């Protein structure tokens, strides 16, 4: 292959609000450049996890190299880096953006700018990317391209009058986009003659090759045999293979040099060694400084995960191990619950990340899981000056030893049309939000800024937001820091026994309400026993709510007819089988579903 002319490379990404058509546009670009025929395209080439396609979101960054013959007669190499599209993965997004020189901003011609659009554009601009807008979905009857163009200029402050008007779905205006990429996105800088400096923006684990590191070469060059060092993790390795990204496949090449986007493998066993954002350099000719922006990713949300069948504990451990190979942001450590037996306390970037991992464990590893209520990391300051980070409510020290507790707060931006400002403000108020400001974006829309406890938004905040704004509000947040808060541990007692897996930390003011609803919910979940079962909610030993499951007093089989014993046995077996799926706490059998029901407290 002839040496690649650095000036003919374009490294870019597409930023958009969810559902504005990012992945569809990526597909069209790939299709138009002739790399794939329409027939070969599995809809949405870049979202290749089954889950991603189902949810219509991108979880892992995907990258593809394509060749485009432009109207100026030259061939250009495009490296399209698809970024994750959810706040849970903000850091990953920022690293992917850092690997690009420009970005295409896709805005829905009907919906206009959303909170997430803004957040992502600002993130791109922060990384000094050249951003040009594209107005998508112009085929919709409700499309208002002119209004949206003005909105982009007013709100974001980038030129939008000559933005291509496209319909990615119908393949309209794609040529224009390709030409704009050539014209508006700068060629990468850097020199192949400088010491190696490459940014890791993702990695995947392959059982044959070890970790495949996705990187953007900023300076220098790397090829087979180069001894590399990851500057933050300090891992070293010898490069086995370098290459670039075909559609859905890795294509080896001789060398990657400044400006290029590609992968390298070096028999690395663990993705923890190749942290996203880290800098790769040449051991024998190291660069002076690592690239800026690296940070260690911390889990924000924790929950307990237990196999429904206790015997599957080793299977769960193996599955987590395998998932972690590909997902350095997944943390887990063994824990034991009196009610649920052996399991793991797992840490995630956010609730979406949690749900994805849970679904993958269930689908790809065929595990039946019981998860406990997700919680955030609380800081418990003890009277003796020690501070502990609490990820499992059961580990809360005795109240007498606690000086005060802190909880993580986020700065949230909510974009909403005027008519829904009232309900949304009310929602934020209910969730203990602190009002910061309202910015009016145009006559009909506003950007609300709030500070909210992370705890209050981790599960159903987004759903509540959508339902109270008829789907119009959009939302983005970033972690702000810790604040002191009046927190208590809410315990659930079933037949006077505390059930550790049902305990959670809650703000003192909402303890009564939550406790009451927990008891109601559990009353419906727990089957009748031969005796009466009190269900109580308690804070610090004081009962704040109670429900009772009445005793079962009659359970007799129907007529046993014509000697069909098999059928009657099946009925008894079903009853017995039902019991197996229960967890024994004291002398009460609690169905698995009861542990999950606490997650759904808000859908009354």
């Amino acid at each position: 292959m002839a040496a690649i002319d650095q000036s003919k490379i374009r490294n870019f990404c597409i930023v958009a609000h969810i559902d504005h058509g990012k992945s569809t546009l990526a597909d069209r670009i790939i299709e138009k450049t002739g790399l794939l025929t329409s027939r070969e395209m599995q809809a949405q080439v870049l979202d290749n996890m089954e889950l991603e396609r189902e949810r219509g979101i991108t979880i892992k960054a995907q990258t593809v190299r394509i060749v485009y013959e432009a109207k100026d007669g030259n061939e250009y190499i495009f490296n399209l880096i698809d970024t994750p599209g959810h706040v849970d993965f903000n850091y990953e997004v920022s690293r992917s953006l850092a690997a690009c020189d420009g970005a295409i901003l896709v805005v829905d011609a009907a919906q206009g700018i959303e909170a997430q659009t803004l957040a992502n554009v600002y993130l791109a601009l922060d990384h000094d990317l050249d951003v040009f807008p594209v107005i998508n979905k112009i085929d919709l009857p409700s499309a208002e391209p002119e209004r949206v163009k003005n909105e982009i200029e007013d709100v974001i402050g980038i030129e939008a009058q000559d933005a291509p008007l496209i319909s990615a779905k119908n393949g309209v205006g794609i040529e224009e986009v390709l030409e704009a990429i050539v014209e508006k996105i700068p060629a990468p800088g850097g020199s192949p003659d400088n010491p190696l400096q490459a940014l890791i923006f993702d990695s995947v684990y392959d059982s044959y090759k070890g970790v495949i590191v996705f990187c953007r070469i900023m300076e220098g060059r790397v090829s087979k045999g180069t001894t590399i060092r990851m500057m933050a993790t300090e891992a070293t390795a010898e490069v086995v293979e370098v290459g670039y990204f075909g559609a859905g496949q890795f294509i080896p090449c001789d060398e990657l040099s400044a400006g290029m986007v590609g992968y390298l493998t070096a028999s690395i066993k663990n993705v923890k060694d190749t942290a996203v954002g880290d800098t790769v350099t040449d051991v024998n000719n190291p660069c002076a400084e690592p690239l800026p922006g690296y940070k260690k990713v911390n889990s924000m949300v924790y929950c307990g995960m237990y196999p429904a069948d206790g015997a599957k504990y080793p299977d769960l451990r193996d599955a987590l191990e395998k998932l972690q190979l590909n997902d350095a942001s997944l943390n887990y450590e063994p824990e034991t619950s009196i009610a649920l037996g052996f399991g793991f306390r797992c840490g995630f970037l956010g609730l979406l990340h949690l749900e994805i991992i849970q679904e993958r464990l269930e689908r790809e590893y065929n595990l039946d899981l019981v998860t406990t209520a997700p919680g955030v990391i609380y800081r418990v300051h003890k009277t003796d000056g020690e501070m502990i980070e609490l990820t499992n409510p059961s580990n809360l020290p005795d109240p007498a030893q606690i000086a005060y507790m802190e909880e993580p707060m986020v700065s949230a931006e909510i974009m909403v049309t005027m008519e829904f400002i009232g309900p949304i403000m009310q929602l934020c108020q209910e969730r203990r939000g602190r009002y910061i400001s309202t910015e009016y974006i145009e006559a009909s829309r506003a950007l609300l800024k709030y500070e909210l406890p992370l705890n209050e938004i981790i599960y159903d905040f987004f759903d509540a937001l959508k339902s109270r704004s008829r789907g119009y509000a959009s939302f983005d947040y970033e972690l702000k820091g810790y604040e002191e808060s009046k927190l208590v541990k809410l315990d659930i007692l079933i037949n006077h026994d505390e059930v550790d897996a049902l305990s959670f930390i809650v703000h003192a003011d909402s303890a009564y309400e939550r406790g009451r609803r927990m008891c109601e919910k559990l009353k419906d979940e727990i089957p009748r026993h031969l005796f009466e079962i009190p269900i109580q909610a308690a804070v610090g030993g004081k009962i704040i709510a109670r429900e009772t499951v009445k005793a079962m007093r009659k359970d007799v089989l129907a007529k046993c007819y014509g000697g069909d014993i098999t059928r009657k046995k099946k009925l008894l077996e079903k009853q017995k089988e039902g019991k197996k799926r229960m967890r024994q706490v004291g002398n009460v059998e609690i169905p698995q579903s009861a542990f999950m029901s606490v997650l759904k407290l808000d859908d009354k």
Partner: protein
Amino acid sequence: MKELSIYIHIPFCKRKCLYCDFLSFPVEERKIGQMRGQQVDCGKIEIKNYVNLLCQELMSSAPQYRQYQVISVFFGGGTPSLLPAEDFARIMDTVREYYQIVQDAEITTELNPGTVDGEKLKHYITCGMNRISIGLQSADDEELARIGRIHDYRTFLRTYELARDAGFTNINIDVMAALPGQSVLSYERTLRVVTALSPEHISAYSLILEEGTPLYERQAEYLFPTEEEDREMYALTKDYLASCGYHRYEISNYAKEGFECRHNKVYWQRGNYAGFGLGASSMVENVRWKNPEDMKAYEAYVWTRHGKDMDAADMHGKDTHGKNMHETDMHVAERQILTKKEQMEEYMFLGLRMMCGVERREFEHLFGQRIEEVYGRIPDRLCRQGLLTQDGNRIWLTDKGIDVSNYVLAQFLFD
């Protein structure tokens, strides 16, 4: 000589009751077809064909029961009384011709009120029938209509009197509690009315809503007794029937002294029984099987057996691992050779349905192990919970244990 009970399934009924999920179908709803210009009731042809199949099955199965004497015959349904008298006679003649029936065998048929007249009942006696079981369910006409029964109380009463007149001295009456719209008072009235007639045997069940039945699908439209009422009816059954001289010998069965149903007890005590007809269940020497439930499949099953002199050993015993299975067995819907563990389970969960319970000595004699060796502390635990009682030999359900018998019986199933 070993003992055998025979069950004969008659799947026809006039109209399906709204709560019924047994294998039966209404015969009158069958289409009236044209044949050689004449109107022919396909239902009648169907009954004739079915009786032919039954007799054929009885004949070709007979060789495998050469070593057995028949102690009871039970016609169940559907509504067996829909069979014309001559068909009944044919079946009974076949049984008598091919099987050895003991002198005092209990020969029962189920019947529904209004489906027989005095002549038919006399005919039954002539055929050797000595016990009938009448499905009354309730003495309240509105309750009967609500569950889709084809008769009212007066019709029942006439049938009962006709049966007595015909000479039946052993009659069972079925009653049901927890019916839609039923009150404790109306249930008590049903019990009063029934006991006043002084039948020899009473079966009292609670209505169970079975999935797929019209009553189940439309349960929201009905007002069912509350849990408290249901409970009260249940307690009433036992106390009231006891006061009238009926002793409870099984969870749902009550009888005057000496009139316990022999055939029923064979099921609970795991005696041998052979079922004939569509979807009929059998258990002989610890092999359970079930005839096909589809009429076409049943027909094929009967005809492939035809003419084959099957030895009893072909059906059970030798081919315990399914090897050398007789080709006809391929048409049997379910066939199961019970393992020792399964036999133990059955011994316990069937035996405990009887008020006399199970016997430790018998268990040990049958299985070579003591109950405690097999079930550990389960019996003791259930005794402590007040659900079972035991003496040196027997273990049986307490009143409280009867109330929650599903729970108790399920404890004796292995994981």
